[in-house]
């Protein structure tokens, strides 16, 4: 990317950041929702694990670390503003970008990055408070190779989810009703479970895990956290990272093609 191009998208992120602070109430509510959900799941698993120190092949500290870890990875992977693209496609505000020398994908990616940063900051703050309050046993990964793999997997999950989510947004070209929310909501609900947001996926019956674990959704939360917990061996880690890279290429291609196709039928509504 050229320097001027970088400046362009840096400015987008900066403007988005200042816009984010304007929606203070909205943001705070969103964070509160996250924390309440996290605490609910935490206590559920705390109750389960206090009866049996190991369950489903997880130690208490592993399970609780997984649950608390989802909060930070969730902020990194799922934190986004780019769902607003749906509204723009549906209302015709997409026009504003199509007439400018700017890539719609990079525009939203920049805004997402800004949003993720804000969310991660808050998430880390929340977790710190929870750690002081609940004082749970925490699993600390010390192997540098695992830590680097965990970081890499988290970043790949973030990029992968961006293209996946954008692909969902693109359906609004064909189903513009309700700003594309019916299809988005459907995905949200499924994803919560399929990505490992409620519990690690490998506690499921092996037959079910064999399927769910292979779906792209498993890479969003489950895989990075499994790597952190040291539950994958090196060959599994390498395979996972390659699969994520593969999915990024596929999803990116699909999102791009769908966008171009969508533009051809785009009515540039609004009158």
């Amino acid at each position: 990317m050229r320097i001027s191009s970088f400046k362009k998208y840096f400015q987008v992120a900066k403007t988005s950041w200042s816009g984010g602070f304007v929606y203070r109430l909205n943001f705070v509510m969103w964070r509160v929702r996250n924390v309440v959900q996290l605490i609910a799941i935490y206590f559920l698993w705390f109750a389960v694990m206090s009866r049996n120190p190991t369950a489903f092949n997880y130690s208490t500290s592993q399970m609780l670390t997984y649950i608390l870890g989802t909060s930070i990875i969730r902020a990194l992977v799922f934190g986004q503003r780019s769902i607003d693209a749906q509204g723009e496609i549906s209302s015709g505000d997409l026009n504003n970008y199509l007439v400018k020398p700017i890539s719609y994908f990079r525009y939203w990616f920049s805004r997402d990055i800004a949003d993720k940063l804000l969310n991660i900051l808050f998430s880390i703050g929340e977790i710190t408070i929870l750690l002081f309050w609940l004082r749970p046993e925490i699993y600390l990964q010390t192997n540098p190779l695992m830590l680097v793999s965990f970081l890499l997997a988290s970043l790949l999950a973030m990029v992968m989810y961006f293209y996946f989510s954008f692909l969902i947004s693109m359906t609004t070209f064909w189903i513009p009703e309700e700003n594309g929310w019916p299809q988005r909501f459907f995905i949200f609900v499924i994803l919560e479970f399929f990505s490992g947001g409620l519990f690690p996926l490998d506690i499921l019956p092996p037959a079910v895990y064999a399927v769910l674990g292979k779906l792209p959704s498993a890479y969003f939360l489950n895989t990075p956290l499994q790597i952190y917990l040291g539950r994958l061996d090196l060959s599994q880690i390498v395979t996972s990272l390659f699969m994520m890279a593969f999915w990024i290429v596929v999803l990116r291609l699909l999102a791009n093609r769908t966008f171009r196709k969508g533009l051809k039928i785009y009515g540039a509504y609004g009158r």
Partner: protein
Amino acid sequence: MKDMSVISVRHLKKYYRVHEKEPGLKGSIRSLFTRKYTQVKAVDNIDFTIEEGELVGFIGPNGAGKTTTLKVLSGLLYPTSGEVSVLGFNPWDRKAQFQKQFALVMGQKNQLWWDLPPMETFILNKEIYEVPEDQFKKTLDKLIELLDVKDILKIQVRKLSLGQRMKCELIAALLHNPKVLFLDEPTIGLDVVMQKVMRDFVKQYNRQFKSTIILTSHYMGDVKELCERVIIIDKGKILFDGKLQNVIDRFARNKIITVVFSRDIDQRKLAEFGNIREYQFPRAKINVPRKDVAKLSAKLLSDFPVADLVIEEAPIEAIIREVFTGKMKQTNA
């Protein structure tokens, strides 16, 4: 042969497919399974060219195809068929080189960030269009002065009035000094004072920057004051393309004679001259055929006690209205 026009449109067609839904729940359920589509000819085979520095008015009723044409010229819509070239580019390719040279302003849409002060959008656009710092400052200062918006730059856009917002929309669109400007209903919803400010600005901008401008408007005032050339469009077809004065010459059948009498007169006798639009002693307004206007006014002067007499064109609004309602077809032929 190379086309030297800034904008050239040949045999442009844009057809939409829209689905029809029967009213009510039954219709909704039925439309889930079978959808009936109809074709809408938004733009139906139009041709025109526009030269550098021209300020052209696009007029036509709602749904005539004005906005669709502008959207095709901006690269927002993919034409069904035909050729379009703007500054030598095919708009649909949406090349950055092209996009840096034009701007589209829609009176009913906004590009300003709703929750931030307008200045934030200006700075963002500076980076998007890669405008050098010194040029940005110079252009911005000039636009701020021309539109008198110095005091509102740091106020959230959502708190601005429609007029203030429209001014800022214009600034946001012009910061990169576009050579071609498409203005879609820029004065819609504005009060008369603000309409005048906008018109004056567009006129001045066109003159100072030699930019090529297409303006669509419902308000004839905009077009009358700004555009020498108009393109009248209805149901996707061009009805007229030429000087505004020629619209009047070609389409206006009547002129209006206003007479002030010094004594009361016999109205029946006056009716022989033409269609009396209003009569309230001492003033009468009569529609008379254009070709007879000299003869009839001479006769008026000799037959009646006339204190004053004025001959005027019918208002342009009325002429255009007649063009659209098709009353003029015979005279047009």
